[in-house]
């Protein structure tokens, strides 16, 4: 499902760049319909996660954590952490597009997101080592999912639309890419088409 969604996201972005507005709108309808189905399958509402205006329940979220090397237990700096979500009215008129909030872990391997949205409670993070060996090895990319729970609620909601503030710490362990550098061999490199 995740692959399907990230593929979709890429398709959306590339079509957004290459097609005219009419086609984009039509395409977007198809995408939104598909997303509805995808959301149902995943048990969450991915299409309407972040409404533009609040006529619906909403909450504040803080999602933070530390990225650590599974093998050395050392914090890993400069890991790209993307929180993908869907937003109304982004990039073109009247549609939903996939965008991502992107941060990078600091010297201590820490990252944090603050956002508001529908209290669907689910989140997804995509972690990627973007600087090769420089942060202590090449780490395998990872995608994680999870949910905010009542236990994460730091601030109560009101009796209107506001559901309060949720703060979650989600630490992530990253594995090394098994870098084979035998004696008298070269460092492995990805193929580049």
């Amino acid at each position, binding site marked *: 499902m995740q692959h399907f969604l990230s593929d979709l996201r890429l398709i959306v972005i590339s079509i957004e760049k290459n097609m005219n507005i009419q086609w984009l709108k039509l395409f977007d309808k198809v995408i939104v319909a598909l997303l509805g189905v995808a959301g149902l399958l995943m048990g969450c509402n991915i299409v309407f996660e972040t409404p533009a205006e609040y006529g619906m329940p909403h909450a504040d979220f803080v999602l933070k954590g530390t990225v650590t090397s599974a093998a050395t*237990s050392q914090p890993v700096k400069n890991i790209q952490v993307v929180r993908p979500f869907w937003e109304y009215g982004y990039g073109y008129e009247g549609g939903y597009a996939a965008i991502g909030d992107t941060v990078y872990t600091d010297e201590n391997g820490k990252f944090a997101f603050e956002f508001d949205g529908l209290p669907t409670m689910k989140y997804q993070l995509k972690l990627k080592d973007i600087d090769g060996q420089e942060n202590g090895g090449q780490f395998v990319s990872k995608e994680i999912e999870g949910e905010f729970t009542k236990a994460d609620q730091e601030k109560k909601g009101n009796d209107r639309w506001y559901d309060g503030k949720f703060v979650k710490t989600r630490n992530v362990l990253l594995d090394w890419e098994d870098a*084979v550098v035998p*004696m008298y061999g070269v*460092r*492995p490199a990805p193929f*580049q088409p």
Partner: protein
Amino acid sequence: MNLKKQITLSLYRQHKRNQAQLHELNYLFWECTLRCNLNCLHCGSDCTKEAAVQDMPLADFLKVLDTIAPHVNPNKTMLALTGGEPLMRKDLEICGKAFYQRGFPWGMVTNGYGLTRERLKNLLNSGLRSITISFDGLTPETHDWLRGKAGSWERAGNAIALVAATPNLVYDVVTCVNKRTIGELEAIKNLLIGLGVKQWRLFRIFPKGRAEDNPLLNLSPEEFTRMLEFIKQTRKEGRIHASFGCEGFLGDYELEVRDTPFFCRAGIHIGSVLADGSISACPSLRADYIQGNIYHDDFWTVWNERYQTLRDRSWTQTGVCAACKSYKYCEGNGLHLRDEKDGRLLCCHLEMIIPIPQS
């Protein structure tokens, strides 16, 4: 060793076992020539200007690639060209293009002597993705002495500067540390940083081939430990990513001087096609380690059905290794450090690590 490290190494041990069972080929050496333009004191192969063994025709190696391509993901199978000196092959660009067309990333290990800006450009256009350049001394005196040719230091330095300034090319510099250079490491480090180098691999010269009888080449236990300490400190500094070569279980230095714990992947992830068509693992594994020959065996069949001694290392638990407490992590050292005829251990890294006064 602290508990955290012990747990890591124990988990990693299981990972190694699993990997040995899976034995997924993801790294293939091609000894594309035995010709060389230098005359290194420590050379493992018997390279000369005009080698007795002819360069393997590209078509023969491509047949091997075509037999493995349906079974592996070519995009994730690294081809490492070694020699001799790969740049001695005039058709290197043609070879590279053929690998690229088949979807294999490829790289080469070079002494840099023949790497001009023009040649590098052509190689990059032929899909070159990774390069390793040897740099063995702070001055021509120590480098050219080891490499056996005047002018090789300068050429290697120029090649390194070229490569370090090339965007999107994976590379590293390797240094064979010996008695004459152990005291120069700090200065070599600064020189490399000045050239823009980010990745530096250091090894010890292993006592084989031409190296065996030269007392200046082999580090003493104290010098060896100093080198590990130097790598550890350099990694902490974070100005250049230094690491020790793939060989040897290093006890407390595990995970301090390399990105991953010790794992000799020969025959597990690493295969090779040597100049005469022999099918092996790392190029230094010859004689009894040879599993077949591409001129009368199918490489993929050999990869799947042979290599038993490389994947099940229990035979190495003899001699000092039999009573060694670290055997479970080490499994008898890298295979190139076991005699290719009788399997005897030639060198134990752990034994070479001694307490030294902290400088």
